[in-house]
């Protein structure tokens, strides 16, 4: 699980998370307003936020604990830069309705899960831009799938960075193994979400390409 609970992180990391989140949310609103109206994007954003919101309910047992679907790769590829506010809203709802992840840590959790979403979007968009053939759809699916998997791995990595930063600030060795444990636990999830992301992208490209941010002539 990459949702960090309350009371785990040091205050500096929590505040830094909030500041970063606010900044990136403002940036994403400004960036998308250059290409589309926010009101036009809202229904699609709500849909993807709903998918992200319920994804955390689907658990996969891994060893002594369990991990849950994140779907930040899919959200990134479908929504583009607006995936960051979408994940923020999704995390708010998860924290308040499911007690999934702390409330004070919503900022840092958004950073940990939102930045990989943006990365997944960036990779897929660049690849899609280079390929103009419709025949290369299978390649797009593979690349999108890979970016979906990378999004999960990055989310686990950033979460462990947050924990290790807390260790460094507090001077305690609590989370020194965090990176290895988190990445190992999420390895099956990387594969699963790569498959999910690839399938979703292939399906939407065939059925309704304009739903995908990477297919729209916008950011």
């Amino acid at each position, binding site marked *: 699980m990459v949702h960090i609970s309350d*009371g785990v992180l040091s205050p500096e990391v929590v505040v830094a998370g909030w500041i970063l989140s606010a900044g990136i949310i403002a940036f994403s609103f400004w960036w998308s307003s250059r290409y589309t*109206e*926010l*009101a036009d994007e809202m*229904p699609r954003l709500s849909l993807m936020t*709903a998918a992200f919101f*319920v994804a955390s*309910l689907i658990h996969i047992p891994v060893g002594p604990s369990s991990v849950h679907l994140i779907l930040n790769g899919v959200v990134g590829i479908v929504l583009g830069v607006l995936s960051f506010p979408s994940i923020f809203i999704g995390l708010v709802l998860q924290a308040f*309705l499911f007690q999934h992840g702390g409330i004070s840590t919503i900022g840092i959790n958004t950073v940990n899960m939102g930045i990989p979403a943006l990365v997944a979007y960036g990779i897929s968009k660049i690849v899609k831009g280079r390929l103009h053939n419709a025949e290369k759809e299978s390649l797009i699916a593979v690349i999108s799938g890979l970016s979906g998997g990378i999004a999960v791995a990055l989310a686990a990595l950033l979460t462990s960075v947050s924990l290790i930063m807390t260790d460094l600030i507090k001077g305690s060795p609590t989370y020194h193994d*965090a990176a290895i444990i988190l990445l190992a636990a999420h390895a099956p999830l990387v594969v699963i979400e790569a498959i999910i992301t690839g399938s979703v992208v292939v399906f939407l490209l065939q059925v309704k390409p304009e739903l995908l941010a990477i297919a729209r002539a916008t950011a």
Partner: protein
Amino acid sequence: MGEMREREKGRGAREKKKKRSGERREMGRGCVIVFMFFLLFCFGIASAHRIYVVHRIADIEVYAYFGGVGGETPCRYADVEVYDDRGNLYVTGKTDENGKFRFSPETGVKTYKIVVKANLPGHQAETLLNLSGGYSDSSAEGAIGLPMRILAGFGYLTGIAGIAMLYKSRKATKAARHGDN
């Protein structure tokens, strides 16, 4: 002479009778005493049938799990810390393979804070346990029920989409009106 002998016989017989009856009385008394002794020891046997009632407060069981759709996944082998009502660490341990942890309550302590740190880094949860409140189901968050909370989330998101669509249609109407003018 004969009469004397008869009398003596009778006396003798009477004396024998007295003796015998005296002996019998003594024997009877002896029997009573023996019987009374016997009864004394019988009390020991009778008291073994007395019922004893004792009570002890059973262990408190803590259950930690990852909640979600498709059932709960128990939080196995997670560190548990129990603090008493003064904030001192009372007992530590680990949840077993079913995610459960038991501890005996400290005499006189009614409130405990239980912190469970999941073995995935960065995840912990705590609950406050108050014994004097009677049977307390500390999973008060589950009071609303998971399906309702999912619907609540969808409700919020639909509301956001609806507000956006409302705003859009108002703008379109305004633009149309301006276009007509």
